[in-house]
């Protein structure tokens, strides 16, 4: 399926043309982003197709910088209209808007030597995500759901199973001569069965597999069976008394903590002094066993790209090394505010200023088997699901709804829900007392099993 590219416009040429038009209209510098994508999505429920979606769309964004005595005024526009009239409107709008913004001494593109992109095949795009005919894609979702439902008679209902595939193309060009383009592909299978206990209580969980190439996806049966296992183990969940106890974060929730570490290390939060890491470069911020890395260069990674949203090559940045805060993550603007260079972590939407974005972000694996970590706990919580936003990036206060398994004497005793776990990120990172050897990328952010001591569990 190639809908949007069928229009015959060379998008790289278009990007270069928009840059030229912006300069001609009065911009001192310009950046153009073009995104194009196709999606296919099918969901089945109880064996029947529920929704089937297939389409494509695209958009173009322009950011202009107009030089003043002491910096630049910036503004941006975006559009889904690729006609020449639409492009004229895009350019004229951006230049007009820049007249109303303030001169910002820190605004401006990166230095000439900083632009560039990774060489070689990063294996981000695989034709095979669309190689299967639709009936077979539907069959994949059906197989995942059927495998889940067959596991146990207590699986009485289903929130469905799905197969999704998407391809996208991203083009970026600026007035300093950078021009880059890359394609990426993605596909996934997911299943979400519902189990019911004798007293009528329902529980739902899910599992998924995602990959850049179809051939790398897990078998639908494996996805369905894992979804069933996870759902069934939640049945007959109880609440527990309010207490302090060790909390073990399963990998799928531990990765949220790694995301909070990244957020705290972003240059934006640092220059505003809005982070628990403000002024802590070179200091101990986490347990000595903790190393956190952002790496946008891993071949085939979900967070890999040849260049960031400002045209700088993606790279590997060690954020926390053996508990010491080593680097902030920066784009050009936040770097300049801090007197540092970008770490190639710029992200952006079609319109708006660049923000900060992670590549492949992970906490390095430790030596312990997850089972051994469970066995190390006398009385505590193995948390498999977290609810709500409950993380204050400024104070580090952490309080979220939780569900999972209660551990007694190193063994799973029963499932628990309708409880919260709370603490402060500053303490939580220092109180990581065990790190699993089970680091697996199931998305762009990954973490192994983590044990954290000293958190408060609120329940009955």
């Amino acid at each position, binding site marked *: 399926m190639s809908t949007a590219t069928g229009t015959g416009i060379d998008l790289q040429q278009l990007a270069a043309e928009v840059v030229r038009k912006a300069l001609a209209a009065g911009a001192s510098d310009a950046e153009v982003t073009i995104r194009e994508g196709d999606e296919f999505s099918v969901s089945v429920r109880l064996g029947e*197709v529920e929704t089937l979606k297939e389409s494509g769309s695209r958009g173009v964004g322009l950011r202009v910088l107009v030089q003043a005595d002491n910096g630049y005024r910036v503004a941006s526009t*975006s559009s889904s209209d690729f006609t020449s009239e639409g492009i004229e409107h895009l350019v004229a709008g951006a230049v007009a808007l820049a007249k109303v913004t303030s001169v910002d001494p820190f605004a401006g593109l990166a230095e000439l030597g900083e632009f560039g992109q990774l060489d070689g095949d990063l294996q981000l795009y695989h034709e095979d995500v669309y190689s299967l005919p639709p009936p077979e894609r539907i069959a994949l979702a059906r197989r995942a759901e059927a495998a889940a439902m067959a596991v146990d008679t207590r699986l009485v209902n289903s929130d469905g199973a799905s197969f999704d595939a998407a391809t996208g193309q991203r083009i970026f060009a600026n007035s300093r001569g950078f021009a880059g383009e890359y394609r990426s592909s993605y596909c996934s299978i997911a299943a979400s069965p519902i189990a019911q206990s004798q007293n009528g209580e329902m529980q739902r969980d899910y599992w998924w597999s995602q990959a850049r190439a179809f051939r790398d996806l897990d078998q639908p049966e494996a996805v369905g069976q894992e979804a069933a296992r996870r759902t069934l183990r939640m049945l007959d969940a109880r609440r527990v008394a309010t207490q302090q106890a060790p909390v073990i974060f399963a990998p799928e929730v531990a990765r949220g903590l790694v995301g909070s570490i990244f957020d705290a290390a972003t240059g934006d939060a640092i220059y505003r002094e809005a982070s628990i890491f403000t002024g802590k470069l070179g200091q101990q911020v986490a347990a000595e066993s903790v190393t956190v890395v952002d790496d946008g260069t891993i071949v085939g990674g979900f967070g890999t790209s040849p260049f960031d949203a400002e045209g700088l090559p993606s790279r590997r940045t060690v954020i926390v090394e053996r508990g010491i805060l080593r680097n902030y993550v920066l784009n050009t603007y936040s770097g300049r505010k801090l007197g540092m260079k970008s770490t190639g972590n710029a992200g952006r939407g079609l319109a708006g200023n660049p923000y900060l974005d992670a590549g492949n972000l992970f906490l390095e694996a430790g030596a312990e088997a997850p089972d051994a970590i469970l066995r190390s706990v006398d009385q505590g919580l193995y948390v498999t699901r977290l609810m709500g936003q409950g993380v204050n990036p400024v104070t580090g206060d952490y309080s979220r709804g939780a569900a999972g398994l209660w551990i007694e004497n190193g063994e799973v005793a029963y499932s628990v829900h*309708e409880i919260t776990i709370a603490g402060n990120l500053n303490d939580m990172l220092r109180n990581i007392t065990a790190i699993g050897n089970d680091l697996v990328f199931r998305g762009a952010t990954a973490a192994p099993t983590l044990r954290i001591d000293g958190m408060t569990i*609120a329940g009955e």
Partner: protein
Amino acid sequence: MDHKRYFLEKFGVTDRLLERCLGEALSAGGDYADLYFESVAATSLGVDESIVKSASQGVSAGCGVRVVSGERTGYAYTDDLSADRLLRAARTAALIANGPATQTVQGFTETEVPNLYPAPAADLDTDLASKLDLVMRADRAARKYDPRVTQVRASYADELRRILVAASDGTYASDTQPMARMNVFVLAKDATRTAKGSSGGGGRVEIGYFAGPKRPEHFAEEAARTAILQLSAVAAPAGEMEVVLGPGWPGVLLHEAVGHGLEADFNRKKTSAFAGMIGRQVASPKVTVVDNGRMPSRRGSLNVDDEGSATQETVLIENGVLKCYLSDKLSARLMGIPGTGNGRRESYQQIPMPRMTNTYMLAGEDDPYDIIRSVKRGLYAVNFGGGQVDITSGKFVFSASEAYLIEDGKVTAPVRDATLIGNGPEALKHVSMVGNDLALDEGIGTCGKDGQSVPVGVGMPTVKLDRMTVGGTGR
């Protein structure tokens, strides 16, 4: 430009083309088809560190084609509104069905719509100066509030959405939907601590709204007040206790505890903890909850929903008894229940589904002061961040961003952020007092479901819950 003629004049979308596309959509035997045309123009401005660092404008347009065959939905969309592309999208969506055409396209009957909000004539408001003035005033007011304020970010964003819906059952509706919003984010710092505060609001209004009581200074001072307050906050308590929720935005409790669980799609599939509970007592007799898409200028309001159906006021829970689910066309047809005009979608790229509009609890008879006085030891929560619900288990959370301890009937120390958790079908049974002070939120709510975000409103009077779990770290 008259919104009824907008897609004709700008994109050449004639009634005949609509009929052709719908005919093509039903060509493989679907039961029902609809077209959703959307054109959006948006502007945003931001002041940060007292300078205007960002200004952006965007335009997008497209059409989504849906075909329903039994319980199956086929969907395709295009951002190119030429006849070729529309017909191609219709043919793609048509393939959900498998057979000869059986349905014909009915003659169009225009949905009668109220006039709940202004319909600005201009495509993009070029009056940037007055928008800039709003954000600059917010910056100044927040900084003036207290010398401990160190960072201020203020933004203004508006959007004008035009829609046209045409369906094979003869539905034909169009609307122009404005939305404007201000946000202020403040950081405050003292010798030992840093804290944040935020505030915002708006609705389906024009810029003149911010010259009234909800002027930029209102939002700025509110954000600054919260940040300063948080500098002296103590640890939130942990465990089950009495909880008093203030009026207005704490109504997010209703949105999470019952609102999502009452969306008809979940109940049709029996995946909701509320499935099969119509007519049952699900809340204290003091609780009556409605969803109302017809409130003038409100963020969650719509003249017409995204399936072209008229919106309405729907009583969900009356004196504690579950009365009704929120439905869209598909759920109404499959369940044999009345449609409630709650079919909504984020954009033309998305399939509509039952969603809330403005959801609130009606006022009771208690004096808010009596409610506080009745609590020996508990939490008084007056402002919240977001929430989340697992509609199958019924467990829901919402996070307090401004809350205080109640000790011996008096509001005492402010507490740090804490998440509250409860069980949807049970939580409202613990409502023992309902205040006479119903208030709606200031217009900041965005609801997410299946990856689709739509603007919503919530509201509530002061309410006492005899028990709820508070997720702090203190005693």
